[in-house]
């Protein structure tokens, strides 16, 4: 049977995508597909970059982290930012990880909601990045990331980040209620920890390889007095 549609009529808008009602699961599938597309495109873009441009790779990682946080927002407390900041701390050091953490918190909160908590999130992720930088010698050994150790730290980082962000509740809660508030959030902390372990298991090696390719070589320093410095 042939069906003729009059797309010039006023009712034509009924046939566009806005008329399709998607459930939460449908939206999640779309979001994960989009995140995969973004990740693939950024990975392709990274392969064309010259090595040594660690700031550019930080921007690409930031774009992926922001996209991941926004697109995975329907899943409670599961997002890739913590693991990305942790890896940035390991490979690029504390200062770059802090910059990445604060930028991701700010950019993603422009869509998810910006407020007092943004500062606590920036601090929380910065602490995670600093921990990664401080423990980099134990997490990145002989040119390889130690996945089980990193997974453990990522799980601990989830609790640390969540509890730092929860400190913002002290602006409105008493100390006694705050402890209960922290306890109430433990199922959410567990989800964050489990999500981090999944991201470490699936993404740590490829992301680590990408980051390693773009670590800036140490800047050569001139010797002021080459003759007298000889023994």
């Amino acid at each position: 049977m042939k069906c003729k549609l009059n797309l010039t009529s006023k009712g034509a808008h009924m046939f566009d995508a806005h008329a399709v009602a998607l459930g939460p699961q449908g939206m999640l599938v779309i979001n994960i597909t989009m995140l995969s597309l973004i990740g693939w495109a950024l990975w392709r873009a990274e392969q064309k970059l010259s090595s040594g441009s660690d700031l550019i790779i930080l921007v690409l990682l930031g774009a992926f982290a922001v996209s991941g946080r926004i697109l995975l927002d329907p899943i409670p407390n599961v997002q890739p930012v913590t693991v990305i900041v942790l890896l940035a701390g390991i490979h690029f050091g504390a200062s770059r990880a802090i910059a990445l953490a604060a930028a991701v918190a700010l950019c993603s909160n422009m869509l998810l909601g910006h407020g007092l908590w943004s500062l606590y999130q920036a601090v929380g992720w910065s602490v995670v990045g600093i921990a990664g930088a401080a423990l980099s010698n134990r997490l990145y050994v002989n040119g390889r990331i130690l996945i089980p150790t990193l997974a453990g730290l990522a799980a601990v980082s989830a609790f640390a980040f969540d509890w730092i962000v929860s400190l913002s509740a002290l602006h409105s809660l008493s100390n006694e209620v705050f402890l209960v508030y922290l306890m109430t959030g433990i199922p959410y902390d567990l989800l964050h920890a489990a999500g981090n372990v999944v991201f470490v298991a699936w993404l740590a090696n490829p992301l680590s390889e990408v980051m390693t390719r773009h670590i800036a070589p140490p800047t050569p320093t001139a010797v002021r007095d080459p003759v007298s410095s000889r023994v």
Partner: protein
Amino acid sequence: MSDSLKPISLGILVLLLVSFPKISTEWARMTAELVDEEDDPHFGLPDIWDGQQVVCIHFPEAEAPEDFDQGRIHIDYDGTEFMSDVEWNETGACIGGFSDHDNGWSLLNAAINSTGDTFLLNITQYSFGLMVDSIAGVDPSQMSGNFSGAYWSLYHNGALSMIGITELELDSDSVITWRVDTW
């Protein structure tokens, strides 16, 4: 180790996500007991309704309509049933997530309308005010047993309301409750 971590961690995450609503609800109930919230009218209600207005209708257990005879059902302002609390010590439903209603009658109508014809109201207008005769077909005057002189009684933020629903002024987070009392 890292290869086996992929499916194991993913499996655990999926398991956690599937059981999360149940786990978080039960956990929140346990932790809520650590704080004395007897004065909080939102005690036992979903957190997403904090700061918003709620209407609760509690039926006598033996008289509850078929769909509302197991604990308390929570229905959002758009009519979505999203949580059932079978451990709650009263039987019925709460409809919440409302805001900006200054008057009890306005809030009650919004709640009733959001659920379609589930909680049909029968009222009688007297000279002294409005009387609710039945909610969802549950008419206290028709109940047998220990319900002599029973009527639908109005509570505002946990306290028996001394004024009728049409005169009741609301707070931004008011909880109004209907339950069957006897004279």
